[in-house]
């Protein structure tokens, strides 16, 4: 593969206007809830009023009799995947997905779908839901991890066994290196701490929505907002029994996902309602439903123990991570188990994760799934270790950085480790060097904290098609929903490689019938994978252009080169011909052999991990318990920034989500197991006035296995903030918080305890 070096570029690395931009600033862009169909009716979901209950019977007759009601579905209509046999689609087990989309034997959380109705108006559908009679046998419920793993805890699923007994521990994951006992025996200093984090929601502003039309010939069309139209097609097919070839999933513009839209809730239900009613059906979740019934990420309960020699060499690290799965198995154990110690060269590692079910909505992916809560524990312990050893916390990390060629505890051998570079970027940054006044005013304390983070990044399946239009412009189709500017990056790459002006390239996202299989937008893989398949497609197009020019000039295609948007004879021996521009060749396409265009479908390989190091200054109002972020600088190696603005945007957005996780966001349940804050007022995400500018320091150390050097960007920025802020709060108050969020009630409580102790 030809690696393009930054200096030669006109478009790669340029801050171009994104291809989908004008539609988005004028209100034209169509998101899932913006689609309508002739004859369309509305679907609504009836949800469980109990956190845990056996569903004894469901009587839908009164609802069906209500004028305007066209169809009702229950779990009977959804394909059943028996619990004793796993059927996987990617990382999702269909046994759990079918029970998540519609409660089967039991209602497992407050808000679990029980039935759905389609009616001529949304209000009628809602009214009909109230007429459905459900007989429940209410069971004791369990919400928190510590309660769920007690011996006498209410068991959610009899078929889940841990150590031979029915248990709420649904699974475990282990990563191991060396001999942990020996490691701690070698240590001079050992620190062990326990940490808690609460589930937090991805908080995308666009609620889940879809419109589904099932036609009398058995063919269905789905318009929905997701991180993967092919996932929507496959999962809907599995859950409804309609073959994939009969489903066309059209990706609407997506109003944020952050991982959450890698699974579905509404599409199969809407399809079945459409099938039964003979009408297109639209379903849109309310914010309350989004908060209550879609997946947040796991809350956690973790213990991390790290041992080091006096000189700061870390010799052993052990992590035990209990994660809330919600009501069905599937916590992101890979995040904390694999990522927590990955940036460090530690000879003896034992990292164990437990997947714990309880009566909450099933978790869904959230940006670097699971990694932030692992890093929170690890990076706080490292901070304590640095203090105890009298070593600067960044210096401690630098000394222990993993090295290229090393094997990580999670199994991989690193091709390229660029962790030290991210640490140095912060060490050399004016922010880190600048003094911080610790006590600016009475009652106000300031502190500075640092932390680092790791994410795997990923490759996987991608498809692209690059076609020349008759008037000599370029249309690129890819198969990945664009969550934050991937079309802009692809336009830059295509313009660069073809040597044409950026505004001559259009980039569109194909539906499942118009482009080859492409895996989910997630794991920081899309720019990596799609730039790779687009590059290879463009290389094929250039090959065709050379052939056409050769044909016109009656010379050998080998004697033609493509440069600056035109074919030219390779040298004087090839002949004397004026260049033939892409535009000229496109105009002559039919005479020279037909339309010009090429596609590539690939399982992309060669992803390199992302490393990040952050520094943050905070200010604490000691009386009110309010923690404010004053300044934030985030350094990350992204490989290559195809469009720097959207790379910075990913980092800035990820950091602010991390700030919310650290300071204000949490799921709160009442005694009946009902979510108490299912709205944007009480679930407190950062607003514009809560945060400062976020400085993104973008390092570009190219990935040698990618044509443009791309690594990936979206996940890593949310990994360090939890610990960085916790470390900064410690620096300000001299008091460590072992649980998140560090919200005003908690801060005042800890400060009161401190006062009492003094």
């Amino acid at each position: 593969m030809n690696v393009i070096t930054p200096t030669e570029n006109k478009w790669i690395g340029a801050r171009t206007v994104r291809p989908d931009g004008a539609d988005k600033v004028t209100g034209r862009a169509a998101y899932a809830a913006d689609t309508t169909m002739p004859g369309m009716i509305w679907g609504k979901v009836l949800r469980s009023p109990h956190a845990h209950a056996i569903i004894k019977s469901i009587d839908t007759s009164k609802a069906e009799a209500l004028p305007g009601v066209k169809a009702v579905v229950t779990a009977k209509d959804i394909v059943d995947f028996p619990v004793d046999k796993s059927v996987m689609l990617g990382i999702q087990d269909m046994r759990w997905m079918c029970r998540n989309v519609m409660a089967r034997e039991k209602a497992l959380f407050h808000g679990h779908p029980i039935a759905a109705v389609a009616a001529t108006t949304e209000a009628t559908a809602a009214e009909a839901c109230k007429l459905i009679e459900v007989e429940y046998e209410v069971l004791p419920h369990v919400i928190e991890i510590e309660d769920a793993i007690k011996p006498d805890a209410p068991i959610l699923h009899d078929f889940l066994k841990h150590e031979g007994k029915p248990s709420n521990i649904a699974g475990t994951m282990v990563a191991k290196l060396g001999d942990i006992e020996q490691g701690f025996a070698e240590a001079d200093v050992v620190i062990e701490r326990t940490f808690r984090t609460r589930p937090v929601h991805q908080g995308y502003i666009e609620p889940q929505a879809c419109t589904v039309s099932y036609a009398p010939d058995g063919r269905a069309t789905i318009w929905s907002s997701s991180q993967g139209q092919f996932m929507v097609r496959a999962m809907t097919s599995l859950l409804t029994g309609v073959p994939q070839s009969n489903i066309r999933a059209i990706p609407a513009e997506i109003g944020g996902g952050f991982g959450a839209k890698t699974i579905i809730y509404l599409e199969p239900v809407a399809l079945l309602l459409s099938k039964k009613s003979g009408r297109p059906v639209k379903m849109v979740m309310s914010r309350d439903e989004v908060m209550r019934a879609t997946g947040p990420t796991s809350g956690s309960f973790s213990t991390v123990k790290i041992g080091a020699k006096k000189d700061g060499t870390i010799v052993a690290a052990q992590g035990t991570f209990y994660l809330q799965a919600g009501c069905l198995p599937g916590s992101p154990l890979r995040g904390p188990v694999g990522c927590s110690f990955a940036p460090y060269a530690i000879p003896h590692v034992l990292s164990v994760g437990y997947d714990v079910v309880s009566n909450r909505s099933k978790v869904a992916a959230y940006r670097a799934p699971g990694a932030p809560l692992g890093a929170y524990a690890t990076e706080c312990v490292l901070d304590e270790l640095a203090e105890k050893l009298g070593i600067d916390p960044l210096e401690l990390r630098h000394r222990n950085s993993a090295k290229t060629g090393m094997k990580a505890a999670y199994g991989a051998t690193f091709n390229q480790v660029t962790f030290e570079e991210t640490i140095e970027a912060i060490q050399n940054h004016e922010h880190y060097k600048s003094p911080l006044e610790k006590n600016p005013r009475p009652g106000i304390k300031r502190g500075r904290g640092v932390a680092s983070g790791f994410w795997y990044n990923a490759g996987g399946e991608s498809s692209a098609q690059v076609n020349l239009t008759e008037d000599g412009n370029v249309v690129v189709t890819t198969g990945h929903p664009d969550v934050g500017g991937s079309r802009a990056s692809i336009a830059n790459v295509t313009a660069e490689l073809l040597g044409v002006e950026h505004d001559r390239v259009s980039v569109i996202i194909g539906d499942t019938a118009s482009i080859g299989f492409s895996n989910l937008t997630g794991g920081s893989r899309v720019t990596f994978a799609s730039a790779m398949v687009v590059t290879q497609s463009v290389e094929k197009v250039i090959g065709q252009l050379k052939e056409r020019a050769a044909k016109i000039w009656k010379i050998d295609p080998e004697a033609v080169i493509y440069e600056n948007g035109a074919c030219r004879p390779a040298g004087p021996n090839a002949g004397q011909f004026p260049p033939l521009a892409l535009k000229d060749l496109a105009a002559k396409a039919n005479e020279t052999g037909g339309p010009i265009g090429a596609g590539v479908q690939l399982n992309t390989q060669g992803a390199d991990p992302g490393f990040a190091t952050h520094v943050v200054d905070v200010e604490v109002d000691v009386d009110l318990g309010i923690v404010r972020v004053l300044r934030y600088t985030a350094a990350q190696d992204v490989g290559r920034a195809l469009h720097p603005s959207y790379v910075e945007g990913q980092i800035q957005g990820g950091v602010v989500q991390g700030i919310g996780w650290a300071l204000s966001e949490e799921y709160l349940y009442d005694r009946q197991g009902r979510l108490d804050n299912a709205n944007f007022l009480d679930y407190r995400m950062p607003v514009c006035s809560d945060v400062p500018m976020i400085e993104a320091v973008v390092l570009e150390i190219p990935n040698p296995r990618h044509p443009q050097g791309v690594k990936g960007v979206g996940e890593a920025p949310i990994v360090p903030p939890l610990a960085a802020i916790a470390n900064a709060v410690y620096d300000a108050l001299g008091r460590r918080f072992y649980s998140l969020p560090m919200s005003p009630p908690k801060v005042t409580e800890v400060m009161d305890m401190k006062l009492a102790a003094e």
Partner: protein
Amino acid sequence: MAKVHVTTTINGEPTEFLCEPQQSLLDALRNNLGLTGTKEGCGTGDCGACSITLDGRLTCSCLVLAVEADGHSIGTIEGMAQGDKLHPLQRKFLEMAALQCGICTPGVLIAARALLEKNPNPTETEVRFGLAGNLCRCTGYDKIVRAVMDTAAEMRETAS
């Protein structure tokens, strides 16, 4: 229930529509009038995705009944550009990448325009508080705040 007849001006055009008495203005704009540029993020006044102007005043359209719009003038995102000429805020948002997924963008733009009409020379803090009613989960607000301040500077220059 009988539908109610409402007479309004939307983006300068006299507009009449029928709605249910309990329908929100947001719902009527989107579902009765096809003006889907205004978005629903929460329906409870907490996210600002549904921001419009009502007689020039910044308003959450999810908190207004459609019938209350009778006799009033409404401004939505669809009316922000003049023909094919984008409003300076729209242009700056594109140039400075102040949007990622774009779902919050219509509301943010309407709120930013209302802010700059009241205060053509806002400080960073004033921009941050002026937009505090508009949640954006993608951008971390950095590029939004910069784009608004840059637009303000540019508009002041063209005005003088």
